[in-house]
């Protein structure tokens, strides 16, 4: 069981670290719910972001999946909501993905003023939806038999036992990251590679006297992350021993 997991991908992620700082209007810091609920949370946030932009989501959910790439509906000032059509399925994320891709190509024609960071959010929806669709291929029978194509109302009526299904560790960690970030704006990001390269990205609109405080928060976050990188490597070696051997042995 545990020996069947491919932990190489997880181990590989430790070859670089990514530090993100996000400004939120409110937060509770609650842990991610069980995976089926988390998937619907993500689908709901992405759908809401697209609707707020003016994307006609009902059109994307009414079309057959083979026609999504060529679909070209008009923008809507107040598009209808699609909550009842969101299900735990690659189909839902496929539709959201194509809707976001469409919007990205036509942002200049959006009916409402478009915030500066909207392009980045749409990119995120496309990329994360693709990643989630790939995850579905790896979900075990326990997950698929219980949750595939279920809506929120179905999940609420069920008792979800976490021991009844298993996900690949890399998928859980990625899902957790996608859920934690949601549709929030990353205002600062630093990526540190094991080779020593460091890249920092800042949001363009980050100005004003308070920006300095935010820089301070981000800097300390980077310091702690880099300082404790060895702890994470030690933890990973203890748990992923075989995966590290495979990883370091490959050229």
């Amino acid at each position, binding site marked *: 069981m545990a020996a069947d997991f491919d932990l190489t991908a997880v181990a590989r992620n430790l070859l670089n670290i990514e530090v993100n700082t996000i*400004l939120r209007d409110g937060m509770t810091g609650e842990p991610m719910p069980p995976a089926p609920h988390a998937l619907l949370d993500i689908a709901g946030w992405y759908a809401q972001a697209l609707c707020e932009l003016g994307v006609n989501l009902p059109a994307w959910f009414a079309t057959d999946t083979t026609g999504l790439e060529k679909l070209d509906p008009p923008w809507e000032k107040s598009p209808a909501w699609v909550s009842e059509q969101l299900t735990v399925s690659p189909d839902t994320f496929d539709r959201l993905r194509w809707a976001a891709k469409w919007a990205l190509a036509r942002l200049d024609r959006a009916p409402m003023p478009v915030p500066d960071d909207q392009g980045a959010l749409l990119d995120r929806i496309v990329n994360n939806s693709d990643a989630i669709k790939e995850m579905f291929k790896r979900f075990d029978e326990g997950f698929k038999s219980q949750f595939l194509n279920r809506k929120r109302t179905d999940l609420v009526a069920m008792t979800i036992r976490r021991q009844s299904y298993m996900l690949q560790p890399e998928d859980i960690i990625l899902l957790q990251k996608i859920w934690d970030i949601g549709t929030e704006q990353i205002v600062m990001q630093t990526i540190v590679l094991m080779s020593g390269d460091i890249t920092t990205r800042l949001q363009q609109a980050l100005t004003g006297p308070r920006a300095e405080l935010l820089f*301070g928060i981000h800097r300390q976050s980077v310091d702690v992350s880099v300082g404790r990188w060895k702890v994470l490597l030690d933890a990973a070696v203890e748990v992923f021993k075989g995966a590290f051997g495979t990883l370091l042995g490959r050229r």
Partner: protein
Amino acid sequence: MSGFGADIATLRASWQTAGGGWPKAWQDARELIVQRRVLVKTTAPTKQGDRLVLCTRLRLIGDTQTDVLRDWLGTAPAKDVAMVTEAHFRAVDAAMEGWNIALAIERVLLLLTSYIGLLIAATDLVTRLMTSPSLLLRSWPLWFGLALPLLAQSARIALRWRLRTLLARA
């Protein structure tokens, strides 16, 4: 410093901290594996009362995400923000130390158990050889002493297997 010496130094230092000592360290280490991240939350006074203002998730794969409450950053005095931020990241650092401490506890326990087991076996062996060598094979302290290190190592392997299983629960 040798491995054992370094582990003892780590345990002594952690015992003396005000952050909750060994139980907290074990809890933090468990959280890192079971939740696949360490989560540290800091509240501070705001106009709406005490609110969660900083929340850091340090994930097992090395990614870190810090959420900052926009309103607090925009209105709290700069000195307060700096002070709360420093305390917050000290707590994050301490939470990550939990894994080091948990590993040190495990290594020390494994080593001590092995030495105690071998000591019991060796003592009994010498005693039996001098008194009744024919009853050697029927001596339970000898077998117990030999079995103890094997049991400790098996427990360690079982714990690793359990951690990998917990890692996959979502």
